């Protein structure tokens, strides 16, 4: 035997170490590699380090309600005294585990999510999982996850959003979801609780909106990567802690804006990021952009902007009206490419580009995410018509692809700089 008496890691310990190594690498990059770091971001760096490197649980005292997509209404989960944990996963370690269980060409996000369930390696293990039937791969992943012994309930989701029928259909699904969850929790959905939950999430959204305002300025006080970290923390953090930390961040940004402290270079092109979601720690493309002197000023992704952009708009604060308003927010406002027609998404990207004075758009699709891959055509055409430069990239979670991608991003950013200079 080997001369060392040290124990060999169990498979779980090994996975944890691999994930910790992925996490710390990104966190150290954020902490150290950019100029003018923001002090109050440390709460978020530390949060991710605690969860992914030190494996601390955050919600021992609550029922953890796993969600497989953005469409499961958190308002209802909070109203029924649960904690929503969004399980969309960005770890390459889990992607590799999932690769053995999924088709080779499947999307890395789904592979990583399935891999995470297969490993069973959770700091906050979900007590029940709700899986909306959004894209094909997520829909089918549900049964795979169930086969590992998790309690999983499908939530029927329509793939058109224009028709009144689909609206009705989804409203019924949301009601059914509330019934299932209320049964599981042994609690009744009350008017007061639902109203409080809507207000609390609405307040969190308003903080995100304030955060976004700073990014419209000519002098940008925060990195796009940091904003992704803040919004990704909303997947699993205690909501009150998140609110407090984001309030602190906002007051620091206020001061930075006054003192004209910026994280960018003198002529950093302003980028809108759209497409497959950056989920911690897969910030590959955002990192390449911001290390190549670009700055992400806004995004159109389900791990960030799409979670916060649209609020639940209630007319009458009775339970039926609240439920319908919640349903509408998760269907009508959603710009996911799974929908048949998706002009909303193009409109959103164009609108963001104008509001945030963007120099260009970077569209990333995960190799294997068919709908994002398909929709790039219409988005590229629309941007061309609007005269907004756009770069389309395909990537996955593997750590080795950096060189090829960064050359393309760098060239794009250089072209944006030249374009801006020629305009002046």
């Amino acid at each position, binding site marked *: 035997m*080997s*001369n*060392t008496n040290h124990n060999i890691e169990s498979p779980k310990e090994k996975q944890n*170490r691999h994930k910790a190594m992925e996490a710390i*690498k990104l966190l150290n990059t954020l902490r150290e590699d950019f100029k003018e770091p923001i002090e109050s971001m440390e709460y978020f760096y530390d949060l991710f380090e605690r969860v992914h490197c030190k494996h601390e649980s955050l919600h021992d005292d609550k029922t953890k309600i796993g969600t497989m997509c953005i469409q499961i209404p958190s308002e209802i989960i909070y109203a029924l005294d649960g904690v929503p944990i969004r399980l969309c996963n960005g770890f390459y370690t889990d992607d590799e585990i999932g690769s053995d269980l999924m088709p080779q060409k499947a999307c890395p996000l789904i592979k990583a999510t399935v891999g995470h369930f297969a490993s069973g390696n959770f700091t906050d293990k979900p007590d029940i999982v709700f899986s909306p039937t959004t894209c094909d791969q997520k829909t089918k992943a549900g049964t795979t996850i169930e086969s590992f012994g998790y309690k999983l309930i499908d939530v029927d989701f329509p793939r058109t959003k224009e028709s009144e029928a689909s609206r009705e259909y989804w409203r019924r699904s949301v009601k059914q979801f509330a019934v299932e969850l209320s049964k599981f929790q042994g609690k009744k959905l009350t008017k007061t609780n639902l109203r409080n939950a809507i207000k609390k999430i609405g307040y969190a959204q308003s903080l995100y909106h304030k955060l976004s305002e700073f990014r419209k300025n000519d002098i940008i006080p925060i990195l796009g990567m940091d904003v992704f970290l803040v919004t990704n923390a909303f997947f699993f953090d205690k909501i009150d802690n998140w609110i407090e930390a984001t309030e602190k961040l906002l007051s620091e940004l206020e001061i930075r804006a006054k003192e004209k402290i910026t994280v960018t270079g003198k002529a950093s092109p302003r980028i809108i990021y759209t497409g497959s979601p950056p989920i911690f720690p897969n910030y590959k493309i955002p990192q390449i952009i911001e290390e190549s002197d670009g700055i992400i000023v806004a995004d159109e992704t389900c791990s960030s902007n799409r979670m916060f952009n649209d609020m639940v708009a209630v007319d009458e604060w009775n339970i039926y009206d609240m439920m319908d308003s919640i349903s509408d927010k998760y269907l009508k406002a959603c710009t996911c490419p799974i929908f048949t027609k998706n002009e909303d998404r193009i409109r959103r990207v164009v609108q963001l580009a104008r509001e945030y004075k963007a120099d260009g758009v970077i569209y990333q699709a995960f190799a294997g995410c068919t709908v994002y891959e398909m929709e790039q055509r219409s988005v590229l055409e629309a941007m061309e018509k609007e005269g907004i430069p756009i770069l389309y990239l395909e990537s996955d979670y593997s750590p080795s692809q950096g060189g090829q991608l960064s050359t393309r991003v760098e060239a794009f950013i250089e072209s944006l700089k030249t374009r801006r200079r020629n305009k002046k």
Partner: protein
Amino acid sequence: MKYFAGIDIGSTAIKISIVDENKNLLGFKISASGSMFYKYAQETLDALISELGLNNNDIVYIVATGYGRKLYKEADENISEITANAIGARAAASEFGEIKTIINIGGQDSKAISLDNEGNVVNFAMNDRCAAGTGKFLDVVALKLEMDVNMLGEYHFRSKGTPLSVSSTCAVFAESEIIGLLGNDHGIEDIVCGVHYSIAKRIVKLVKRVGIKEGIYFDGGPALNDGLVNAIENEIGQRIFVPKHPQITTSFGAAIMGVDSYNYENN
């Protein structure tokens, strides 16, 4: 009594083993390859012979192996280091049991060799000639961290935080990554640990190409680094066997081969 020498001329070190007719290891000697492979090999052989109280005439058969084997013209035979490694490993691990896979990390390359039940080489995989994941890589790291390469193992086990991964596969780029980590005041322990894991991951990929089986033997100079041994064990998920003198397995195998060839030629 007749004696047999195996000379393994590697990129970094020359390793010589001498065995008797019964294939027992009598002694070995290791010296740096330096710039004159042939001269140093000859000097090392002479020194070893006199240390063992033998004469040059007692050595009846010499087998050369390793990267520089063809430079040693006096050899009666020369064989590839893969064959020699397989023979040596089986002999060195006799008390451990059946060897199915050999991991060898040398100064400039690394290999995984898969053996059948009779100890024949059935498959092997080598990295491209490149310093990534080799002994040279560890030398570069130790130099940068201003420590002796023998200290790496000790630092590895002192790491209390998350190992810091070094993602570059190129030794030159990895060096600049390490400089970056040092510049940000990260603990040397966590850096060393991360370096070991990055080598271990590459090695495990190599082993996967020939198939991971029970009975893994690890040799070559870097096997002296128990931090690296620990990292490979963790990545591969099983105990691996490291012989007492991991540097000389291949020369030992060459010497054993000499016994067989001599007997075959003279009977």
